[in-house]
């Protein structure tokens, strides 16, 4: 498997890495552009997070070579990570409740 991956890496060439690098730079630049847009902070947050997720996906698939690993491993990493990350989102509603002031801040 290691040999197969190694051969694959050699045959791919540096071109693909450069393309991914330029894409990542462009996406990082896009985040900076979004930061200066005159929009609602929640909208800004959603847009920036979406761009960051695309960046992370590109980095994982091509820089970390997850794309050339076995599909079962790719699924293991993606499903496990996404499931736990989603599990961490349960607290947001409570943070908004702190802002709106009910019931704790009275």
């Amino acid at each position: 498997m290691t040999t197969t991956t190694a051969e694959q890496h050699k045959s791919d060439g540096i071109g693909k890495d450069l393309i991914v690098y330029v894409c990542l730079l462009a996406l990082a630049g896009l985040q900076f552009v979004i930061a200066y847009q005159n929009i609602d902070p929640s909208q800004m947050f959603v847009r920036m997070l979406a761009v960051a997720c695309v960046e992370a996906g590109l980095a994982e698939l091509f820089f970390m070579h997850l794309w050339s690993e076995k599909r079962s491993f790719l699924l293991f990493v993606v499903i496990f990570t996404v499931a736990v990350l989603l599990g961490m989102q349960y607290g947001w509603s409570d943070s908004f409740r702190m802002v709106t002031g009910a019931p704790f801040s009275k």
Partner: protein
Amino acid sequence: MSQADLTMEGHSTGLTAGPVFSIPTKKLAMWLFIIADTMTFAACLVAYGFLRNGSPSWPRPFHSITNVALMTFILLTSSLTMLVGLRSARAGDKAGAFRWTIITAVLGIVFALLHLREWMGLIGEGMTMFKNPWGDPLFGASFFSITGLHLTHVTCGVIALIAVGLRYKGGRYNADDIEVLGLYWHFVDLVWMFVVPLVYLLNLTH
């Protein structure tokens, strides 16, 4: 067939089954570490978001994006140099792999220095872990915790890059070790892509 034969056969089957997911053990261990570390950073960022949402006076102390943009560029470029180093190692170019690994480490050092310069600037403006002149005191605690955790990862990565590079040059490590270290370095880069928008860009002074 005796019970002993059955047991031996069972063991034999287990031993020859090959590594999990058919990837080398070191690489699998690094991936498992990365998944675990993802949870650590995610927990920190979610906690940061919770505090930011829950505070009506969250400060926006960043006036300029120049420093953070430069840091992002350097870290992304270091990922590319790491890849070039790995390619050289795979191609058997030992000198090239060592050179690119050290270039990656140097870029990591430059990133860390820029990060420290930014910290010193904020500390100079009166920001500490427990207070700041702009608003909610928790901003300092969350900012230094998240960026400090990331900076710790970068520092460890730089040390590992130099150590693995030297051992690779000395013939004690091979291209697989460079690849495993590369996974870690790309992960540090990946985390920065989330830290920048959440901690810096959402707190820009407009």
